[in-house]
């Protein structure tokens, strides 16, 4: 049951366009969220001031009726909070489906003239009848109003079912501020509507892992999660192998980079083939990429590459890895570390064997292999495959 404050204090313009309009928008949003989150939910609306405390629409699940009744409401007179809560309780008591939980959502924008004691008695009565209460404290704020309302919520609250939100005047619209509060998200931890609205408002679905709403597309979310775990496991295996290699080989850091990169590359390619989006964990891979770039190459270019990569990595970790690898190559063409890989003929032959349509005994291929040594450009050959 939603109690609207349409007293004279609502004419003020400190919430754009006016307090009353901001309140009306918030009420519309709440009604939509509640009716969407569960088909058995019903919402009713009543006024606390204006022509008096009266119920505009009894609890119903028909959203059109609820939105229509908000039309043509007049602002005036004083809000009577105690009477309003009593009337709301009565309206909830006579609900058609007795199994529904009872909840009152009160928008309180005018000053509260009641004592703390009176409010606490009201709260206790609500608690006794198992009615939850949500309060949106906005508009006028004198010294005692927040404390009084907090005391009221403390008296009503049983196991965290009642909430209070204080909205100071400012640029943010009342409805936007409310979207992220438990008033909207409810107790189950998020309805699809409220959650996706909150995500849209927060610019970018950063609320969800992998940028995909599990409610909207659960299979895609599951697939992304699985591939990320797979990738993580693979990276761990690579890191482990790399750690072993460093003990064996002479050129510790460079060959560490080589083997890591050579193996990271087919891993990345495989992952590219599987999924369009790369669900890599930003921090995890970025750390690794930065660590690899720290070890190899000249420090100057590495730090420049780091800065560039940090930006790119924030956008697309896959891109970061590719960038890092190309930076590495630029650094290593002078060192010709990569060519050392190709000195290992057996390694090259094995790769060539795996390529379709390439016969290692073909003289042209053999010529190409001979020219590989000391040349860094052959890496492009491998990339294309």
């Amino acid at each position, binding site marked *: 049951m939603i109690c609207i404050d349409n007293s004279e204090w609502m004419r003020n313009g400190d919430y754009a366009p006016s307090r009353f309009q901001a309140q009306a928008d918030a009420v519309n949003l709440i009604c939509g969220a509640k009716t969407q989150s569960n088909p058995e939910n019903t919402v009713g609306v009543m006024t606390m001031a204006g022509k008096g405390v009266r119920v505009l629409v009894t609890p119903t699940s028909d959203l059109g009726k609820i939105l229509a009744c908000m039309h043509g409401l007049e602002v005036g007179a004083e809000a009577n909070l105690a009477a309003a809560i009593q009337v709301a309780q009565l309206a909830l008591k006579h609900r058609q489906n007795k199994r529904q939980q009872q909840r009152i959502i009160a928008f309180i924008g005018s000053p509260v003239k009641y004592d703390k004691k009176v409010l606490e008695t009201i709260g206790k009565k609500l608690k*006794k009848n198992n009615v939850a209460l949500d309060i949106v404290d906005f508009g006028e704020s004198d010294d005692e109003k927040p404390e009084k309302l907090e005391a009221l919520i403390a008296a009503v609250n049983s196991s965290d079912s009642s909430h209070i939100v204080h909205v100071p005047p400012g640029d943010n619209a009342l409805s936007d501020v409310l979207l992220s509060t438990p008033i909207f998200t409810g107790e189950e931890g998020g309805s699809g509507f409220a959650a996706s609205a909150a995500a849209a408002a927060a610019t970018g679905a950063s609320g969800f892992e992998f940028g995909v709403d599990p409610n909207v597309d659960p299979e895609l979310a599951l697939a992304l999660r699985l591939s990320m775990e797979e990738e993580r496991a693979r990276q761990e295996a690579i890191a482990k192998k790399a750690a072993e290699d460093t003990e064996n080989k002479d050129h510790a850091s460079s060959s560490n980079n080589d083997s890591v990169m050579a193996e990271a590359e087919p891993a990345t390619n495989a992952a590219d083939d599987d999924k369009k989006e790369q669900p890599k964990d930003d921090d995890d891979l970025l750390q690794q990429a930065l660590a690899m770039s720290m070890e190899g190459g000249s420090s100057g270019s590495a730090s420049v590459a780091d800065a560039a990569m940090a930006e790119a990595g924030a956008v697309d970790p896959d891109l970061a890895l590719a960038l890092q690898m190309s930076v590495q190559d630029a650094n290593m063409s002078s060192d010709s570390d990569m060519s050392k890989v190709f000195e290992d003929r057996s390694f090259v032959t094995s790769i060539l064997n795996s390529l379709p349509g390439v016969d290692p005994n073909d003289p042209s291929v053999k010529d190409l292999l001979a020219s590989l040594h000391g040349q860094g450009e052959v890496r492009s050959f491998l990339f294309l495959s």
Partner: protein
Amino acid sequence: MACLHDHSCEDHNCAADWSLYNHVDIPKVVALNESVPGSVKSVFKPWEQRLDTSGGFLESNEGDPELLVFIPFTSDVKIKSISIVGGADGTSPSRMRAFINREGIDFSDAQNMQPVQEWELAENLQGALEYQTRYSRFQGVANLTLHFSDNFGGDTTKIYYIGLRGEATQNKRDVVATIVYEVMPNPSDHK
């Protein structure tokens, strides 16, 4: 109207009698004015455990001794008598009013309506007292609402055990509950 067990109370005898707790639809038991939500479920247990408070007990909010307990059954029952084990130091309930087959009773309803039967309770810490019902009025009970309006002067009211004695029939009162057809899948319904 109370009767004391004047025979030596072999547990298994009495236990068999007080077995209506098996037919209580425990997940749907609701109490109003309880200080710990959900604690009312712990007062329905076998006769032997009536004094065992390890599972919790039902207590009302501070300064308010009224309690309302709504007890739905899984099938229609006939209730012969009721036994209540209360708390010490005046926290036992002193008056009990019963309503039958009415859902959604709250305190204002309970105070204004005429109950099906009303009892004056005595302090019953051992659970030896039972209160007989007017059996003809308690046939075919699908749900029972007990309103404990007063206690013996304590700050809160504590109830450790509610025992029901009677018979269960196989009938069910409301077979068709509200059905919701899913036009829009709701993940929380499938948890």
